[in-house]
């Protein structure tokens, strides 16, 4: 793995790497030129062959998603670039937008071409104002150079890109919540079926892809699907941006092949834990993933399937590191509070359950806990999101995966650090 050369972030330290002229100077938009001479179906096939899986969190194969777009429809087709990056612990798309916006834009144009789309959107979270301005500049440059607009590079292909700002809602990172939001509504995820590829934005076929996913596309076209597949595990290959934050010496975004050992990320790339403190727990894939204990974390590779075996997930590859000084009950409450704040309120278990959890955990932290609260947390989380067990079939209790996103991490805190929760109980009650 040591011979891995960054792909997506290769040029991010160079001057003016965000400009069109720089991007072109390092071979940018040659993939697009190539694609415009290809048949759209061939483009989709190349991406399918690459096994590129979505980088937003769910890990759904991108090429297969594109293939769901109906061929026999008169409706317009839409591509939406999901730049709502909102999963705590995740800040990679922001880097890509700031440093290499044209890489993502080229990926968008190629994806749009492959699915036959003429109007596409970038849904960027509202707080990212600087990145919004950066994208505006990049899009303007692209229009000026005929990379967007009418008759792109003389190919008869037309595409417009609209940059759309969100306004503060985690749930709009979920693709159907995002579509509702783009339509000018509250970001309540839609019940499926129908899936967005059939009925998405304005009831038309719509593909939603993440910034990082789209940024991979030009490289797959230029270097080929087999090159991409050769990086990391074959079932979920490619370069991946890992975000590391929390208690580490050198937090940041690190591009590595899929499947890198979590311990290498924490102790080598991110320089280990400050002040020689010991590792306590890790979120491997954003705050929606179940936490791993130090022992588990030191013995796992950052691979879709391997993390599922550990009853957690790769998610958005946002690693949050907690050291021995971290109060796990407070951390659990912090996460529960985040999800209660972000629950859209549509489904009963999530709306009521997140509020319940926060009230109960707050009472516990304030010294008003009782022993049965601990068991109740298990029950409540199970009733919001089901057990962290894909084989049991007891999950999927809400319209979107938010239910699991709150239940699994909160449950994992209590399951793996029960003693700390018990320690918060008033002394006499423990005895009783």
């Amino acid at each position, binding site marked *: 793995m040591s011979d891995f050369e960054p792909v997506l972030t290769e040029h991010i330290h160079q001057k003016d790497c965000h400009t069109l002229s720089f991007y072109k100077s390092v071979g940018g938009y040659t993939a697009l030129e190539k694609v415009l001479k290809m048949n759209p179906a061939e483009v989709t096939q190349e991406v399918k062959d690459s096994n590129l899986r979505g980088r937003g969190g769910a890990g759904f194969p991108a090429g297969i998603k594109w293939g769901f777009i109906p061929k026999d429809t008169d409706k*317009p087709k839409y591509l939406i670039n999901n730049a709502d990056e909102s999963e*705590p612990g995740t800040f990679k798309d922001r880097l890509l937008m700031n440093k290499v916006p044209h890489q993502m834009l080229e990926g968008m144009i190629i994806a749009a071409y492959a699915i036959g789309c003429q109007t596409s959107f970038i849904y960027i979270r*509202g707080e990212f104002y600087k990145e919004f301005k950066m994208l505006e500049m990049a899009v303007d440059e692209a229009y000026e150079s005929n990379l967007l607009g009418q008759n792109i590079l003389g190919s008869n292909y037309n595409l417009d890109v609209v940059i759309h700002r969100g306004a503060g809602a985690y749930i709009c990172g979920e693709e159907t919540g995002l579509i509702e939001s783009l339509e*000018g*509504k509250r970001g309540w995820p839609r019940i499926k079926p129908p899936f967005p590829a059939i009925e998405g934005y*304005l009831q038309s076929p719509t593909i939603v892809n993440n910034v990082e996913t789209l940024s991979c596309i030009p490289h797959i076209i230029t270097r080929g699907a087999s090159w991409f597949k050769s990086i990391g595990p074959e079932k979920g290959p490619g370069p991946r941006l890992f975000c590391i934050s929390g208690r580490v010496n050198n*937090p940041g975004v690190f591009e590595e092949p899929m499947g890198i050992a979590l311990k290498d990320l924490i102790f080598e790339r991110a320089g280990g834990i400050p002040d020689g403190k010991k590792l306590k727990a890790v979120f491997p894939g954003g*705050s929606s993933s179940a936490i791993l204990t130090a022992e588990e974390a030191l013995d796992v590779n950052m691979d879709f399937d391997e993390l599922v075996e550990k009853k957690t997930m790769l998610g958005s590859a946002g690693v949050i590191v907690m050291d021995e000084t971290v109060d796990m009950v407070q951390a659990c409450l912090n996460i529960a509070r985040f999800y209660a704040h972000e629950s859209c309120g549509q489904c009963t278990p999530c709306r009521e359950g997140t509020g319940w959890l926060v009230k109960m955990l707050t009472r516990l932290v304030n010294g008003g806990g009782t022993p049965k609260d601990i068991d109740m947390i298990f029950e409540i989380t199970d009733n919001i999101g089901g057990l962290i067990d894909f084989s049991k079939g007891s999950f999927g209790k809400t319209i979107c995966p938010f239910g699991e996103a709150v239940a699994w991490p909160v449950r994992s805190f209590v399951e793996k650090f029960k003693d700390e929760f018990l320690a918060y109980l008033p002394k006499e009650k423990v005895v009783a």
Partner: protein
Amino acid sequence: MNSNGTPKQKFIFTDSGRMEKILSQYPDKRSATLPLLHLAQTQEGFITGAIIDAVAQYTEIHPAEVMDCVSFYTMFFRRPLGTNKLQVCQTLSCSLNGADDFVDHITQKYGTKPGETTSDGKFTLLKVECLGSCGTAPVIQINNDYHEGLSINELDKLLDSIP
């Protein structure tokens, strides 16, 4: 009419060019709801009843549907705030790296609790959830700009430098 019976002042977009451009970008009018609200809030500071009505008119939806949107998203404010919104991220990575101290410091410095505005109207302190910049925690967003990885001293200097 407002509840006190006075007629509402009509809201007019000063940047009408921008407003027209926003409306023309989408295949339907309703999709322009969020961008029009952003534009209006930039102009007015917060979302007034007159803005709700104006946006409803341009997007051809009911004002209640606009209010539904406004109330859902945390970036739309329904009351006037200070000139500078001090938005401190309090989610895990920031919290692990001293975000709580930021809040305490600002509270002490200006005597404002989260949600409150200084009496001179210069600052409003807001606790916000994950800003997507966990690698440079703790993060404070002042109006549109992120300020990342500051120490308390640096925060202090930054606040003092705001005219």
